[in-house]
């Protein structure tokens, strides 16, 4: 049994994956901060509560998706899309709407969340170790 099969770890992994993707999107926004006509993107919020509920419910039969057109299993974490941001702080005359401060705030939030996730991961590993008696 790997940590992948433990519900909570799976949920943490899903959230970390989401934060990874978001970091990528934010990096794109910052890189294109001076590109005329560029509109910033952001990942739409994933309802982490539902993901956690789906993922921690382990006693379900899961169909295997062998074709990309198959319907996803209910406890799979869907990948978040990155739509253009509708509300931005302001738009420059050249049409680029990236505000570095806004992006920096988002990136910092992202990093704090990531930090939280890795800390939780570590705490849980610690708990399992304690339960196993290897202790620390």
């Amino acid at each position, binding site marked *: 049994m790997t940590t992948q099969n433990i519900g909570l770890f799976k949920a943490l992994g899903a959230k970390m994956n989401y934060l990874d993707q978001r*970091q990528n999107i934010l990096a*794109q926004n910052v890189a*294109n901060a001076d590109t005329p006509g560029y509109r910033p993107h952001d990942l739409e919020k994933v309802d982490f509560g539902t993901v956690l509920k789906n993922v921690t419910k382990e006693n379900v039969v899961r169909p295997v998706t062998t074709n990309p057109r198959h319907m996803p299993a209910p406890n799979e974490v869907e990948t978040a899309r990155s739509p253009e941001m509708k509300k931005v702080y302001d738009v420059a005359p050249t049409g680029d709407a990236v505000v*570095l401060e806004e992006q920096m705030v988002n990136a910092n939030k992202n990093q704090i969340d990531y930090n939280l996730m*890795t800390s939780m991961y*570590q705490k849980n590993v610690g708990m399992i170790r304690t339960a196993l008696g290897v202790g620390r």
Partner: protein
Amino acid sequence: MADDMFTALSVSAAGMRAQSTRVRVVAENMANADSTGTTPGADPYRRQTVTFKNELDRATGAEMVEVSKIGTDKKTPFILKYQPDHPAADDKGYVKMPNIDSIVEMMDMREAQRSYEANLGMIEQSRTMMMQTINLLRQ
């Protein structure tokens, strides 16, 4: 999973490359602020401008940035300077000086510098996040 993070690093690196090209162009402009022609009435050095465009990187699906064009500024008029003994002076004694305003160039340079720093900040953050993931293995 860390693929996105590596992509984020290369996107930020592309941003830094684009901004450093911009700084290079500003440097060229500043260096040539006094480059005049040599024959009477000849045009001096023209100010260069940089335009960016976003470029979809097909391998990663990320929107990178790159310099789309280094153009010449044909709209800003040349500055005329009265210097009748200059070889490039016209019949009235005026020499055409390059259309470079050092304040405009400085502003441009500062903006490029700030954007460069922002990209560097993003790299630093992505790196920290990657290190946090790696640290999970170290217990």
